[in-house]
């Protein structure tokens, strides 16, 4: 299933203008508060009409200004998880969950309630009332309720923003399972880079209603020219890796990336699992030749694709690895001159094992 969105809408004080496509998996709409993210998904859901454009799921047109098509919200079959959950306070959790399922024609149902209860661990909550649930439980019920409509698309509007840090960590694994087990496009609105880096397969970066970039989180979040929009997140890169083995006698784990092996402090992930590593730019150094006889044995080879030099002591170098993953490296500006680093050069990134531990796994 594919969602295609191309629309314009005049909002105060800017115009929303986007054109992107969502495949099964998580597409994050990322940008600062007030950049038009919520208005955008309300238009996808049909709660607000665009001024012009076209929204379609596969070949079913939901909105088209040229043919005056505007399918009613209730007929779009798009699940919507609101920021504030919006459970029906007069119904039990069980009846909240059943609400949408009951309104879905039997022939359209592909989600079983047993699956959803298991996926989101909702069994123990069924008899409760929404007012007695914690914030995290409420969001899980809201997600379950949306899924039980057997939606073709799932929209999530900052589902974690009302939760504190610990509750966020509790619910993220559920979202990961959702992403991996439901084969539908999920549009995930967020202004929290950590969530986007961890969950997204694709990032649509919005600024003042304008679509700045579309791509994998590895590329979009490390693009130096977009730093003004991605915000004050500490400069870092996201590198996908697979856990290859653990060496308990040294308390390390060996990870495989597209550009080579990494030795990390022992991780609590099983062998074979896929992880996303967050590598801080200041934990990485760069050399033109592979370094020998060093304690830093994590070395990844890549090509320099961008260099950002500003005032001050440091510059940032963007190194592209063979699978197009990009590593952001922070170096002293003086060393750029000494090493004569320039765009197009091939180079080696060195990462200390001390900088690779459980905290770097997203």
């Amino acid at each position, binding site marked *: 299933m594919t969602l295609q969105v191309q629309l314009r809408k005049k909002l105060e004080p800017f115009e929303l203008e986007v054109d992107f496509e969502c495949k099964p998996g998580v597409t994050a709409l990322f940008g600062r508060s007030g950049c038009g993210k919520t208005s955008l998904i309300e238009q996808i859901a049909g709660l607000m009409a665009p001024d012009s454009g076209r929204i379609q799921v596969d070949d079913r047109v939901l909105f088209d200004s040229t043919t005056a098509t505007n399918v009613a919200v209730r007929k779009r079959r798009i699940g919507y998880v609101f920021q504030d959950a919006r459970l029906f306070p007069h119904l039990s959790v069980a009846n909240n969950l059943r609400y*949408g399922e009951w309104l879905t024609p039997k022939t359209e149902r592909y989600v079983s309630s047993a699956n959803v209860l298991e996926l989101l661990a909702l069994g123990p909550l069924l008899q409760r009332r929404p*007012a007695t649930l914690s914030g995290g439980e409420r969001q899980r019920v809201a997600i379950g309720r949306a899924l039980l409509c057997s939606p073709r698309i799932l929209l999530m509007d900052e589902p974690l923003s009302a939760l504190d840090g610990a509750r966020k960590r509790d619910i993220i694994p559920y979202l990961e399972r959702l992403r991996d087990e439901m084969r539908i496009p999920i549009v995930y609105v967020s202004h929290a880079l950590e969530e986007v880096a961890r969950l997204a397969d694709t990032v649509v970066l919005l600024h003042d209603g304008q679509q700045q970039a579309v791509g994998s989180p590895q590329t979009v979040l490390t693009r130096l020219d977009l730093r003004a929009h991605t915000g004050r997140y500490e400069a870092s890169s996201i590198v996908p890796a697979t856990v290859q083995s653990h060496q308990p006698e040294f308390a390390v784990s060996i990870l495989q990336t597209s550009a080579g092996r990494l030795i990390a402090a022992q991780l609590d992930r099983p062998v074979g699992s896929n992880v996303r590593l967050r590598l801080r730019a200041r934990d990485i150094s760069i050399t033109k030749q592979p370094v020998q006889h060093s304690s830093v044995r994590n070395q990844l080879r890549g090509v320099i694709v961008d260099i950002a030099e500003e005032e001050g002591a440091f510059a940032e170098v963007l190194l592209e690895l063979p699978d197009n993953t990009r590593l952001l490296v922070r170096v002293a500006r003086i060393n750029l001159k000494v090493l004569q680093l320039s765009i197009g050069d091939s180079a080696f990134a060195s990462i200390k094992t001390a900088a690779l531990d459980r905290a770097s796994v997203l």
Partner: protein
Amino acid sequence: MLQLSPQDWQALHLSLKVAAWSTAITLPIALLLSMALANRRYVGRNLLNALVHLPLVLPPVVTGYGLLITFGRHGTVGSWLADTFGLVLAFQWTGAVLAASVMSLPLMVRPIVLSLEASDARLHKAAATLGASPLIIFLTVTLPMAAPGLIAAIVLGFAKSLGEFGATVTFVASIPGETRTLPSAIYTQLQIPGAENTVLQLALLSVVLSIVALLLAEWLGARLNRRVHGQ
């Protein structure tokens, strides 16, 4: 203790019958009018609102007179009802029901309008994304959440109908066994020298009825509020 004569019991029975019918008939009308008045702006809305509330501010005797010339045996609507359905309202207990309905309508509309207007549009949007049509949303979200308002309306309407006097006595007079409700009976007894004891007894009865109704309303309202807001 209360020592009621058969006529007094008759008045009490008639009052309860009139109040029950009046409440049952007025509730759906009040609900429809409330839906037309809540959260809407259109030409004529203020006029409709004023008409509904008119009996609240008009002297009851004027309302009763209005009913008499409209629904009386020779009134336009009254003669049509009599010729078409054989339904005569003037000087009948059914006329007392009509008078009580008209007088209690504004009291029933107000709490329903307030509870409909307090209904959360955000929940309506959520229901729509789950596939609910406007009718389904009204039946499954708006109406259950307005239940405390509906209960308030029922209690107010019932109490008002039980105590209605001015419009009733003007429209249907005070005929023992037919239209002499509790307030009419009290008024009639007051005209008779030496009937102070009966008046006191009937007055006490009215007080007891009103207190029971209010307590019941309070209890039901609290229960429903808990259900609606889900504790």
